[in-house]
């Protein structure tokens, strides 16, 4: 392939909702094995960027490429099949399904017998179904959720629900994992656990991880690189220490300094 090794590449991406420019001229890339943070004040367009990458919104301009092919405007389920998975800012599990069924929903993406093969349950189907359950349980085991496999997922604790969302996302066998504010609503101890979990997940599954997060300790603690959005534009990008010193970023978060004339 070409020299560019980035897994995901956004060039000049923008989106408008009516007259509102939510994101514009956004250039960004991420490679396998990278853990990158995307930060910015409220309303800066972070979640919108996620929605563009995952196909929930089609960008009004610019190009989105994933491992060499354009995924502009593809349906979300197609993009998921390409290898991009995400979790949500407010947990969106299938609340009345069991823990293992939540994971199975996502695993079914890669089955051969398809959704309708399941209607006449041949031997191949049953074997596959058995394998899917085992695979789901294995994934749950890695994250310490296997013992709750048959419980309805709404009975899980908040932290476990967050973990289950990550498991469900991993079940689609992604190469890029997008985490939307995973630390929201967590206490400091849980946040430390979460940081370990994210790092562990990335190494165990060999992923690229893009993290949107408000908690600076979490972002600065685990990201190798950080991009900063303000009013839908990228205003800075660099290592955590560079970002911490960047005047433009400080101004975006704390307001401009008043300069005497």
């Amino acid at each position: 392939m070409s020299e560019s090794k980035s897994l995901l590449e956004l060039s000049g991406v923008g989106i408008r909702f009516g007259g509102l420019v939510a994101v514009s001229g956004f250039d960004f890339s991420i490679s396998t094995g990278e853990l990158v943070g995307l930060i910015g004040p409220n309303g800066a367009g972070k979640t919108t960027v996620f929605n563009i990458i995952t196909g929930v919104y089609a960008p009004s301009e610019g190009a989105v490429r994933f491992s060499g092919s354009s995924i502009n405007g593809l349906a979300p389920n197609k993009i998921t099949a390409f290898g991009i998975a995400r979790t949500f800012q407010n947990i969106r599990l299938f609340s009345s399904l069991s823990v293992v069924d939540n994971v199975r929903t996502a695993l079914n993406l890669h089955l051969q017998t398809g959704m309708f093969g399941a209607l006449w349950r041949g031997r191949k189907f049953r074997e596959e179904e058995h394998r899917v359950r085992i695979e789901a349980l294995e994934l749950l085991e890695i994250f310490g959720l296997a013992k709750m496999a048959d419980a309805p997922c709404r009975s899980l604790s908040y932290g476990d629900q967050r973990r289950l969302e990550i498991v469900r996302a991993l079940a689609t066998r992604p190469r890029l994992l997008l985490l939307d504010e995973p630390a929201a609503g967590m206490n400091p101890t849980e946040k430390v656990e979460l940081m370990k979990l994210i790092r562990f997940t990335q190494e165990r599954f060999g992923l690229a991880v893009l993290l949107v997060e408000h908690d600076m300790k979490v972002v600065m603690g685990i990201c190798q690189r950080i991009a900063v959005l303000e009013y839908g534009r990228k205003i800075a990008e660099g290592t955590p220490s560079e970002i911490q010193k960047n005047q433009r970023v400080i101004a975006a978060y704390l307001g401009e300094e008043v300069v005497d004339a």
Partner: protein
Amino acid sequence: MNELLQQILNGLSLGAIYALIALGYTMVYGVLRFINFAHGDVFMVGAFSGLYLFRWLKPFFDGGRWLLAALVLLGAMLISATLGVLVEWLAYRPLREKPRLTVLITAIGVSLLLEYSAQLLFGAAPRGFPSLVEGGAIGGIGGLHASNVQVLVFLVSGALLFALRFIVMRTRIGLAMRALSLNPTAAALMGVNISVVISFTFGLGSALAAAGAIFYASLYQAIDPFMGVLPGLKAFVAAVLGGIGSLPGAALGGVILGVVETLVVGYSKELGIPPGYRDAVAFVILILILLFKPSGLLGKNHREKV
């Protein structure tokens, strides 16, 4: 006492039909959150398909009346399922991202289109519907009587409900349907092909409505292009009564509605309600349920998170 049991038995067979129709409303509501008001007309098309299938197939079957009945039933279900999928594809899919009210009004349009197209094709006058299974009342247990058709209604509706439960709870497409009804965005992002699941849901619901239509037509032995309007509305009430979005709720709501309606008519003198008010029963129930338990008997309260 015996008369009461007999009335309840009659009510149950009508209720089973309402249940079959109500399931279609509730399933579509589950995945798309809108009421498909054309569902009653898909029901009507099921009945007409049955009539014509019966005519075409009859010369080939001399003795095997049950086999003929089965073929008519399956054929009508297949035709209605195709129509349901087609309606969704042509009328509702282009409006997927539009406000729900737009789709709702489109559904009313589709309903009128189907009704008047049927009138154009089949004429406005009621047509006789053959009794699919011969024979009158089977002498029942303890003086109760069930006609052949009623027995057929009970057996086949029961089997269909079990089949539906199996599909929804035990198959992959069923899992996808449940996931979609709980959270469409998350389902799509987990790789569920939403359009396929929605088409399947429409097909499934329409097939059940067609089965209900064949039974309804066999019981009343007359069909016309507007026959779907009232059963459709009543089945909608049944779905709301049971809790819209809930499959067991739709079945329960249908059965309750059928029994209550039959009892009101059967005991109209004692109750002081003229039998002509039979169609009002469903709507009184609708008003009561909306006043006192809007989530329905088996429905869950939706807590919307902002």
